[in-house]
């Protein structure tokens, strides 16, 4: 725990001391930690190698430091930054503190109506509309939706992204159009957890060095069909030496409306396997929108549908051949320093293969209610209650009923500071 706090707080303090006082700092950072009280009622968590949808379970109830984070930007030149994000967790799935993002960003000064941005390194693709605060936090809830929890678990762009935006004067400067194209490597095992564990709802982001435990799947045991799979997933490995890509488009009207759509394909070779990890062919389309409604109510909706497959195909069907689908709607309203938010998630995994003892279909929904109070720039209080009802066909292998409702109450005190 001491290690965790040291890692989170000490480095930015040192940086703040060395930065010059007169000019705008070359270093910009935000760092913080969430001190939480957690009460769960559910199945043992996926983070403990079981199938529970939550990050916590009976083993972790009570008081805990749920996360420490640091987001840091260093200005190499006026238009060139290095940016890193570090998360610290106390769950032994990786080092105490490790990177979630690390990239170079070049923002040349526009010389025309087109604005170009270039990223090189490891970063999140532009899917989440919830996780927009420092440290990929959400200003609305403590946990992310099922869609964005999965992005946090398994998806990272490790490559390059070019972004072009344009704000036509012919539309009065209110509309902005953004297009992005990215090419990436090293995200081949992505899809393993979604197929084998299913969707989850939590606030944990996978760091570069993390190994995420799989449930005790019958078919990955020694002597079985997929015995070459380690009992964990390391989602950011390169296995097949094939590049993936995504295309994203966004349309914005001032700060009232945004619509985005993405086509994502990791172009994984489903027959490649190396070092205990399979490459999965994972594709999805994503559509997200956010709008300010009358009465200053904010609405966010995201929808995702895709497929992930692994193993040799027989008659066009792979050994593990699944499709996934999720949608959430979030309503939020701010009252000065207070904010209340409500979210409904629906999620589903369907299966095309008939591999025995590997039943992955599931369906479920989640209700989340959250209240946040910003006492100051440095102190935030949050309370969140969520309830997930899941029906998962494969749970009978683990001796539990295929239908469960899991609930979690989290009270959280965040201390955050930056320059």
């Amino acid at each position, binding site marked *: 725990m001491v290690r965790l706090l040291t890692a989170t707080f000490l480095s930015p303090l040192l940086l703040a001391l060395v930065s010059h006082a007169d*000019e705008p700092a070359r270093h910009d950072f935000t760092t913080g930690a969430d001190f939480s009280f957690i009460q769960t009622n559910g199945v043992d968590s996926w983070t403990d190698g079981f199938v529970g949808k939550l990050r916590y379970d009976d083993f972790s109830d009570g008081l805990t430091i749920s996360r420490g984070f640091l987001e840091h930007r260093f200005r190499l030149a006026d238009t060139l930054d290095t940016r890193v994000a570090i998360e610290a967790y106390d769950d032994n799935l990786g080092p105490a503190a490790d990177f979630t993002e690390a990239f170079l960003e070049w923002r040349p*000064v526009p010389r025309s109506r087109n604005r170009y941005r270039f990223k090189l390194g490891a970063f999140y693709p532009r899917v989440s509309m919830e996780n927009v605060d420092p440290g990929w936090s959400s200003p609305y809830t403590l946990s992310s939706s099922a869609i964005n929890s999965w992005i946090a678990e398994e998806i990272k762009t490790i490559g390059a992204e070019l972004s072009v935006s344009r704000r036509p004067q012919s539309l009065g400067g*209110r509309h902005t159009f953004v297009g992005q194209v990215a090419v990436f490597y090293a995200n081949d095992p992505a899809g393993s957890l979604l197929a084998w564990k299913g969707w989850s709802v939590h606030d944990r982001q996978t760091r570069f060095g993390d190994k995420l435990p799989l449930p005790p799947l019958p078919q990955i045991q020694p002597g079985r069909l997929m015995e070459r799979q380690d009992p964990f997933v390391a989602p950011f490995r390169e296995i097949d030496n094939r590049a993936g890509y995504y295309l994203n488009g966004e349309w914005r009207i001032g700060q009232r409306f945004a619509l985005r759509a993405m086509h994502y394909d990791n172009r994984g070779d489903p027959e490649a396997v190396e070092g205990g990890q399979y490459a999965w062919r994972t594709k999805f389309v994503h559509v997200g929108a956010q709008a300010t409604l009358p009465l*200053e109510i904010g609405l966010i909706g995201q929808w995702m549908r895709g497929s992930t497959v692994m193993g040799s195909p027989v008659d066009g069907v792979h050994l593990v051949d699944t499709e996934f689908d999720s949608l959430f709607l979030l309503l939020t309203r*701010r009252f000065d320093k207070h904010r209340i938010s409500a979210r409904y998630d629906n999620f589903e995994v369907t299966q095309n293969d008939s591999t025995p003892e590997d039943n992955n279909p599931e369906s479920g929904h989640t209700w989340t209610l959250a209240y946040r109070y910003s006492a100051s720039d440095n102190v935030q209080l949050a309370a969140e209650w969520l309830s997930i009802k899941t029906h998962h066909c494969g749970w009978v292998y683990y001796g539990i009923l295929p239908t469960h409702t899991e609930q979690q109450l989290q009270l959280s005190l965040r201390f955050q500071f930056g320059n």
Partner: protein
Amino acid sequence: MRLVSVATLMATVRLLTAGALIIGACAAVARASDLDVSVVDRDGKPVPNVAVYAVPLGEASGGSAATATATMNQIDVQFHPHILIVQQGTAVSFPNTDTIAHHVYSFSDPQQFDLAIYKGDLHPPVTFDRPGLVTLGCNIHDNMLGYILVVETDMFGKTNNVGQATLPLNRSGEFKVRIWSPRIRDRSDSLSRTVTLSGGRDQVLRFSLESKLRPPRDSDSGALAWSDY
């Protein structure tokens, strides 16, 4: 040191404002004439924040050269004012009052420039020598948008909440009176009028817009967070 200079500046501004008020009062007594321009939308409702300026034609030219300075502030990650009108030759300062740094730029033809990342008053003022519309952005905060309209006259103003602008009429002759706002969709030739103005007599001009206005630029309601892109 900086505090002192800011205080001095504030005092000077107050003094100048008071002076301007006194001069204004005297002028009212002396009954100098005005050009009153009103702008209404197609429903007859007043349109605020429309730039109005009268460019002298031929014999009416002259008028004072630009000596004034102007300020385009950055407050709460937005440009203030959203639209600034200045006479050609005016030096505009760009103080950043936010606690976060900005990188102000423009790619517009009349004046391409950028003020590399800064807080406070780091950069000297920029002089706008060529007439036209200068669109401002921030290279860090994509949603920031501001306009500087550089005009070839010292007779300019902006409509108030009741859609009226009063330009002091300091000479006689023929003028082209123009209006501009990013919200207006009407054809540009309907946004200017050639009028003959003579000192000593108030004149009234009314622009009735035909096309529906674009909505005003949204202020962030705070209901949602908006990431940069």
